[in-house]
């Protein structure tokens, strides 16, 4: 049992938290018809992560998170600026800015690469969920042992923190968030600062992207932001079910992906394991396909 806690539980928890958080926030992108922005934010954070890493020389959570948030802020402002100055439609401006930011991040990664033994391109693109282990665990009692808990992978702390903030923010700002997503003109006329609310949502999404990217990689963060929310969009007409359902679906997809990739075949005595991030992404796509096929009214 301790091998489950040591090897499988951290990855399982990380994928569940990453899927749940991305699923939750993804609904707001889909409802604002700005799914591409999820793509943009999850890529645009890369230069910030690299900068945070390069400046501190540490692969610690806080500098990377702060760098990523700064990059997301810059990218959001840049998208608005490009739209206004070049008079481009939102999609074109978004695509332009996020590929530019991502490219900048890749170059930064190469340039500063000598100092980064363990932040490489593979990790950025595909994540390293399999490397999350809890070697201090000796049994279930370790769950109550502070010394053992201190040995939990630090990525889990960041993921849990961002997940908690996201859930609290969505619950506490339930009414204004819904209004801003549905009708931004009316929201402004009522006195809400719509651009601040949208920036807040964007920063939350960027934080989720950073927290999740080490687990599943930046490419699959996009899948987790889009797929659960789109699947729920096809399955329900109720806002509450949409928002919490997408979070639940994301969490289930994350957990299922990790289990199918390694522990489950192993438990069945099969001698194969595959990349967990790939399985999660495939399951997310499958979820959308199934909801398209079986959606009650749109199928």
């Amino acid at each position, binding site marked *: 049992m301790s091998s489950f806690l040591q090897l499988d539980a951290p990855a399982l928890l990380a994928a569940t938290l990453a899927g749940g958080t991305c699923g939750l926030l993804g609904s707001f992108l889909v409802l604002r018809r700005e799914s591409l922005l999820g793509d943009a934010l999850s890529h645009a954070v890369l230069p910030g992560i690299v900068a945070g890493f390069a400046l501190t020389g540490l692969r610690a959570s806080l500098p990377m998170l702060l760098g990523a948030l700064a990059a997301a802020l810059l990218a959001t402002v840049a998208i608005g600026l490009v739209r206004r100055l070049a008079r481009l439609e939102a999609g074109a401006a978004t695509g332009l800015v996020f590929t530019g930011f991502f490219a900048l991040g890749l170059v930064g990664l190469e340039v500063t690469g000598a100092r980064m033994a363990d932040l490489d391109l593979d990790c950025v693109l595909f994540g390293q969920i399999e490397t999350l282990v809890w070697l201090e665990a000796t049994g279930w009692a370790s769950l109550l042992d502070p010394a053992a808990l201190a040995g939990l992978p630090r990525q889990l702390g960041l993921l849990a923190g961002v997940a908690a903030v996201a859930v609290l923010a969505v619950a506490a*700002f339930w009414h204004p968030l819904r209004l801003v997503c549905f009708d931004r003109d*009316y929201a402004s006329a009522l006195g809400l600062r719509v651009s601040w609310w949208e920036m807040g949502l964007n920063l939350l999404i960027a934080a989720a992207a950073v927290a999740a990217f080490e687990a599943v990689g930046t490419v699959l963060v996009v899948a987790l932001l889009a797929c659960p929310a789109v699947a729920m969009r096809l399955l329900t007409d109720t806002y509450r079910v949409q928002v919490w359902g997408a979070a639940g679906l994301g969490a289930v997809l994350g957990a299922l992906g990790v289990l199918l990739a390694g522990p489950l075949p192993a438990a069945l005595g099969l001698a194969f394991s595959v990349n967990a991030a790939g399985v999660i992404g495939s399951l997310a796509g499958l979820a959308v396909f199934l909801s398209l096929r079986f959606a009650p009214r749109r199928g």
Partner: protein
Amino acid sequence: MIPPLSLRGVSVRYGDRPALSDVSWDAVPGLTAILGPNGAGKSTLLRAALGLVPATGEVRFFGRPLADVRNRVAFLPQRASVDWDFPATALDVVGMARLPRLRRWWGGLPGPDRDAALSALDSVGMADFAGRQIGRLSGGQQQRVFLARALAQGADLFLMDEPLAAVDAVTERAILAVLHRLVDEGKTVLMVHHDLSLVSEHFTDVLLLAGRVVAAGPVREAFTEDSVARAFGGLPRMMVA
């Protein structure tokens, strides 16, 4: 009397194209039609007054800046400006009007606010559809939900962007009945409108626009063949300028 809405030298530009030039106008209680050809700046006027597009000049609501009197001002956007596929019920949408009055932003709508939303739906003949997803309503019903949302705010001034555009006869009658009731209660309704045939019968005042004010005042005085011709015929010149 302090006008419910007062504009002084209000101008709006979209890029290098002037959309509204130097509009000075005072609204009066009653039902005012804001008329003009496409591109005359009718919607822009409402949006500029509400601060939704950058404008120069001075805007006063009841003699004060909008921020001081938001609860007295209700906006009804164009129906096409939102995604009606959004997972929300008619009651959800009307309940949004109560947001500035909510003491907490989480959980369900408090009882009194829910009652206000339901009674607004009832007054536009939509009480039976409170629980229906808005995408499953007809265009006219959606328009009435938007009107109910404006009513649920309990405002004194209503800025409405084409509430009668492409609606069925039942909806048109229902909306006009509500508007007449508001006017009887002493409220002010400013409505962007495009159907000249309804003006004399239903409206008390007009504001004729063609990028600037062409004519304004009581229907009998300002809604003349001459002013209409100047507003609708004046557009090509405006576009060249």
